[in-house]
């Protein structure tokens, strides 16, 4: 899957995305729909800030005591008859999965949506030992047939239109299917029904794990997660080590935040709590249940004051829908399992590989929309700044930028030097100015001018006009109406008073 990364940088991949008209429209339309849905759902529910704060507190508390809660979960799950395993990294998780698949004599595995499984590139590994891996979420199934990666955490096939999907499914069916949503979904239902009943193993992710009872909770709309955890003989659940919440009562808060933030639903069509394998007298449910608890870089965030809150993430995708950059370039441009603002921070943090992934942190306008959207209040925009700082500190900053910054300091540090440079610039730009703007993509202006134009330096700069302005201003103040002057002075006095009392600040609350 990572092999799909043909272009090295976010910028190169974004160029590809920007060229694809349909993708751009689809991403904008979908994110808009999800964002409006969220807004409507949260407004209707009311007291949204109180719920966000509660969600954040529960997640903070659990992560701060993760050794206690994870251990409690594991012991309870074992007592329920689950085989619990631990994987430090991708290799260990894959090895465990393949071991289980071999012992189950599996020929095929049906999977419901799991971001962890995407992290592990499990399908490929399973196929290498001759086990067919079938994604059963409608969107995931489509992109699996296309051999692509998900482009959105909630709607993975956002970038495909119905004609492309009809082509893919027709190839699978062996006859031509019409580009009609109902017909296409109907074919998938029938096709995957057989797979569910045939497969020896069902594989799921895990939205939440309840420590006090050792249960795992799944949210979904299609029913495929219920299928894979009900029909096959063996169930494997892949779970990030941070998915824990203490109790079922805490699940009410997560169930209030997650569906509303993800799709604007009051609750997903199905929410399932699974506590161990089938009881001996039950006639369905798995005979054998495995939970693989995966670290894969997560624990690196523990105890890191700048990034520990990343582990609070409940994978709703609201930050993607809110992000102006994601909405413009789509998920594939991020070139990793997790896209959008959360991906921009999570990917380098999980990989602890700032040098390779640094450009993702730069693909952000730092506008803070992601933080506003986050149901558990993760300060993603702050983290993006921390990442950029770490990148520069680790010597992976951009050389051009460093030289630029040094030059800026040299010039700005001395006013006559600045005046000289501006005069030079006015002369120099004559070579590149066309109808009052600079459009050249030569040299340092290439990046900026690809999507916009640089204004030319004005004939008379602000600096040139300063003396005149200064005079006018002083005159103007003298002539100010007394009532206006009083009001201005009142404002200044009030501000000074507030600052003395430590109130206010500069509005960056």
């Amino acid at each position: 899957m990572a092999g799909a990364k043909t272009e090295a940088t976010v910028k190169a991949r974004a160029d590809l995305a920007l060229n694809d008209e349909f993708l751009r429209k689809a991403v904008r339309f979908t994110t808009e729909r999800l964002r409006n849905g969220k807004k409507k759902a949260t407004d209707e529910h009311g007291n949204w800030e109180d719920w966000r704060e509660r969600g954040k507190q529960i997640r903070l508390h659990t992560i701060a005591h993760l050794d206690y809660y994870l251990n409690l979960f594991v012991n309870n799950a074992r007592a329920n008859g689950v085989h619990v395993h631990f994987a430090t990294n991708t290799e260990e998780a894959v090895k465990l999965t393949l071991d289980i698949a071999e012992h189950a004599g599996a020929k095929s595995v049906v999977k419901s949506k799991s971001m962890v499984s995407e992290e592990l590139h499990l399908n490929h590994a399973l196929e290498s030992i001759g086990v067919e891996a079938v994604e059963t979420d409608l969107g995931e199934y489509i992109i699996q047939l296309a051999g692509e990666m998900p482009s959105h955490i909630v709607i993975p096939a956002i970038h495909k239109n119905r004609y492309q999907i009809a082509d893919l499914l027709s190839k699978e069916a062996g006859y031509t299917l019409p580009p009609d949503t109902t017909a296409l979904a109907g074919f998938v239902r029938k096709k995957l029904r057989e797979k569910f009943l045939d497969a020896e193993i069902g594989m799921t992710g895990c939205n939440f794990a309840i420590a006090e009872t050792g249960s795992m909770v799944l949210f979904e709309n299609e029913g495929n997660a219920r299928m894979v955890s009900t029909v096959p003989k063996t169930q494997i659940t892949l779970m990030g080590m941070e998915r824990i919440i203490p109790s079922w009562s805490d699940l009410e808060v997560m169930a209030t935040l997650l569906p509303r933030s993800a799709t604007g639903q009051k609750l997903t069509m199905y929410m399932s709590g699974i506590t161990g394998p089938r009881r001996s007298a039950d006639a369905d449910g798995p005979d054998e249940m495995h939970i693989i608890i995966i670290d894969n870089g997560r624990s690196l965030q523990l105890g890191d004051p700048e990034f520990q809150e990343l582990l609070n993430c409940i994978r709703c995708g609201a930050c993607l829908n809110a992000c102006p950059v994601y909405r413009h370039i789509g998920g594939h441009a991020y070139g990793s399992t997790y896209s959008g603002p959360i991906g921009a921070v999570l990917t380098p943090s999980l990989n602890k590989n700032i040098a390779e992934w640094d450009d993702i942190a730069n693909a952000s306008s730092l506008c803070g929309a992601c933080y506003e959207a986050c149901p558990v209040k993760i300060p993603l925009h702050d983290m993006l700044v921390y990442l950029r700082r770490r990148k520069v500190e680790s010597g992976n900053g951009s050389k051009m930028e460093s030289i630029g910054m040094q030059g800026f300091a040299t010039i700005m540090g001395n006013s006559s030097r600045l005046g000289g440079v501006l005069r030079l610039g006015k002369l120099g730009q004559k070579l590149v100015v066309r109808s009052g703007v600079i459009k050249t993509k030569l040299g340092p202006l290439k990046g900026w001018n690809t999507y916009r134009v640089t204004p030319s330096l004005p004939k008379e700069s602000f600096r040139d006009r300063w003396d005149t302005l200064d005079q006018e201003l002083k005159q103007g103040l003298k002539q100010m109406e007394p009532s206006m002057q009083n009001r201005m002075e009142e404002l200044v006095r009030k501000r000074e008073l507030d600052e003395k009392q430590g109130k206010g600040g500069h509005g960056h609350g």
Partner: protein
Amino acid sequence: MADTHKQWLEELEAESKVKQEQFMNDIASKLRHPRMYDKPNHPFRGAPDFWNAFEWSEEERIQAFTDNFLSVGGHVARLGSMDEVKSFIVQKAEEMSAKYVIRQNQPELDALGLESALTGSSVSVWNTDDEQYWRARAAEADFGIVIADHAVAYTGSVTVLSAPNKGRSVSLLPTVLIIIIPIERLKTRLGEVLVTFDEAGREQLPAGIHFISGPSRSSDIENDLTIGVHGPGIVYALLVE
């Protein structure tokens, strides 16, 4: 073979227990505290207090449940008695010419006498014969009939719990799902149902607890809503006095 499988699982468990200690010690050291073995004080457990005080009257609950369930494409009927439930099911089965019906094995459903009333359909009762592959019986069924253990008005959800006589497949695999909800089981908030699982404790929990809030759906193809992707596409909630 059985022995070697058991041995293999035991080996895995031994490895897992070693790894568990490493994992927990590593977490504790990264969090810079000694390993925690005692339950920490959790001041923010569950929903905010103002929410826990919120409760609707029975009429409001019925109205809200109905509105929510209809809004996602489900169907709701309010019926006066179990006799009315019986006629409702018989009528629907005839209307849609249901050939195979599967139901949970519960006394309330036995009392409906569907086996004799549904002349055009074959009715099977979950897990009444050890020789059957019950999942396949549920998969071929046109109708699945279940009784809700709980229901939640605020989210428009129904809760079904698994048991030897109550299959998870019955509410999942048939094309049409009929859920009978005794009205006194309809609560206002999700938390009122969830807290019962905390109170019951681990050992009392069934393997499967499922909240169902309407028909199976997907918007994965061009954001176009499709009903009945994997689970039942037609769902009737019958609120019974």
